[in-house]
């Protein structure tokens, strides 16, 4: 049984302009100790998917359906009390912006101790020792002295380390990281990613890594979900997605990667804008931007189906498999040619 199994997850928000279906039937699963990358453009629903799993959407203006089975328990229908027990203990989350994710008026020690005391029946002293241990594990220099410092006394990278320490302090089975490196500079990004993978091995934690950076996915993910406009475009093992991508959107994403070895005037880009989720396009949501668009794409929503040679590789596109193999090979060849 997978650690987390998400089936047909839907979340919509009521806004003044109407109902926004931010997540519209998303299915994926995460195995124990593995890393799943969720990629897509801004606003494609990747963050909302994870906030829904955590039960952190504002209940006043959002509704969710489907299921998110964590060790067989549906997170979406769980009592608030049980959900609180799981949050921070079995499932933890790291957010995008470390500058605003820590409470400015409490010392980081206090915030770490709070995370321990919420789930463990220990004394404050022991909780503090545990906090120190984690601060050292995430590489905060002179942790004993810095534990009583306040968030504003830390740099962005250090704060994200503190967030990671806070998320891992109760050794969760699943860590959801919502673009944990986006707000950091490039050298810090690499350090944080390395830290996450090291700690993943140490604690045997599964990770869901939300990102729009395919480089990050290639680096650390075992499986990939490509999302577009609230739906899954393609999902499968990382090697499959990178070597035999079967969706024009994935081709676009891979084609628009900057390469250090190719001398090009301009980066290739996917034409057009992501659609408004207030009024998504009919049929395949990618059709207004798709260079391979056919009549059927405008009317019929493509189902998420396995490709013939690999049952775990799913894709949602009307194109015939021959064309897709052909195009994928061409894309890959182009990449290889550039490398060669």
């Amino acid at each position, binding site marked *: 049984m997978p650690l987390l199994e998400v089936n047909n997850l839907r979340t919509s928000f009521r806004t003044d302009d109407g109902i926004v279906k931010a997540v519209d039937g998303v299915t994926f699963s995460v195995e124990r100790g593995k890393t799943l990358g969720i990629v897509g453009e801004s606003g494609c629903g990747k963050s909302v998917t994870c906030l829904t799993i955590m039960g952190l959407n504002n209940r006043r203006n959002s509704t969710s359906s489907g299921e998110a089975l964590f060790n067989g328990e549906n997170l979406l229908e769980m009592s608030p009390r049980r959900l609180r027990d799981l949050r921070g203990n079995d499932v933890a989350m790291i957010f995008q912006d470390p500058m605003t994710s820590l*409470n400015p008026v409490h010392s980081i020690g206090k915030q770490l101790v709070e995370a321990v005391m919420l789930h463990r029946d220990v004394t404050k002293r022991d909780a503090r020792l545990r906090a120190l241990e984690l601060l050292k594990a995430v590489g905060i220099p002179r942790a004993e002295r810095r534990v009583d410092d*306040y968030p504003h006394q830390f740099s962005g990278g250090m704060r994200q380390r503190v967030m990671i320490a806070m998320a891992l302090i109760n050794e969760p089975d699943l860590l959801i990281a919502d673009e944990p490196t986006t707000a950091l500079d490039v050298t810090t990004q690499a350090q944080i990613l390395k830290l996450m993978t090291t700690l993943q091995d140490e604690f045997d934690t599964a990770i869901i890594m939300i990102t729009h950076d395919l480089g990050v996915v290639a680096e650390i993910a075992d499986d990939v979900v490509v999302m577009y406009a609230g739906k899954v475009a393609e999902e499968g093992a990382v090697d499959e997605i990178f070597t035999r991508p079967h969706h024009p959107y994935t081709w676009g994403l891979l084609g628009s990667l900057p390469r250090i070895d190719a001398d090009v005037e301009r980066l290739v880009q996917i034409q057009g804008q992501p659609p408004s989720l207030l009024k998504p396009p009919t049929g395949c949501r990618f059709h207004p931007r798709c260079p391979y668009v056919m009549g059927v794409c405008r009317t019929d929503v493509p189902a998420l189906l396995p490709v013939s040679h690999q049952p775990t590789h799913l894709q949602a596109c009307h194109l015939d498999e021959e064309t897709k193999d052909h195009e994928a090979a061409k894309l890959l060849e182009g990449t290889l040619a550039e490398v060669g």
Partner: protein
Amino acid sequence: MLQYLIRRLLWAIVLFVAVTVVTYVIFYVTPSDPARLAAGQGATAADVQRVAERLHLDEPVWQQYGRFVWQLVGERSLGTSFVNRQDVNDIVFRAAPVTAALVFGGALFWLALSIPVGIMSALRPRSLIDRAGMVFVLVGLSAHPVWIGLIFAYFIGYKLQLTPITGYADFFNPSQEHGGPVQWAHHMLLPWLTFAILFAALYVRLIRANVMETMNEDYVRTARAKGAPERQVIRSHVLRNSLLPVVTILGMDIGLALGGAIFTESVYSLPGLGRQVLQSYENFDLPVIQGIVVFATCCIIVFNLVVDLLYAVIDPRIRLT
């Protein structure tokens, strides 16, 4: 820290000079003849001349100001009233406790009223309590304290006979018929309420907005993601942050409230600074006006300093240098 205090004190002196000079200038720009008023009706021109000499009103303004500063620094005296030759120090120190009781008691009332209402309306937007709170805010902002005072005095004091309508009872020195803490509080009840309503209305709005804004902060989401129960999220993460600005504004408003006390004191005939200053303006009694201005300025300066120091204690991001 010490450096900060010294800098603040130097600024206080500048502020003090500015405020007193402005008071003098305004007083002498107003067309008036304080010497004639002080000499009384039926005084001859010679009498008025003598009075003017005695009160040093015949000297140039800058000399009068110099004399005032000299007296204040040298003898710690605010001078004597033009009108009744009373020591201004006495007048101020008799009136100040009344105003202090009104302002601080009123501040307690408005905080006690606005903090719970503000928080509840923020946590349950569009609920009954939120709507009721908004009605209260509208009334509190729109109605003048004098009108509120008269309405309270009429219904609560006169119709229901629950509280005295006017007057003040001394807290420490009971006279024969009234005095002591109970009588004091009984007499102050209506003034406190009247005084508190305007500020309570402002504060409900402020606290509601602050709490709602803080609820959307990332660190509140982090606290929920840690598995903290909602009560703890609100208490430990939302309230502390959303009440920080209230402390700053409270410090400024208590200074401001000294001015607002004029209306409440007039309605309820409380012998405080506000009523005294009003009387002195009518009589062109410069030393008393100046004395009260000096006293109020010092109070406001001290108060803002206390608030700044307090702020550094409760908000770790602020370190005074």
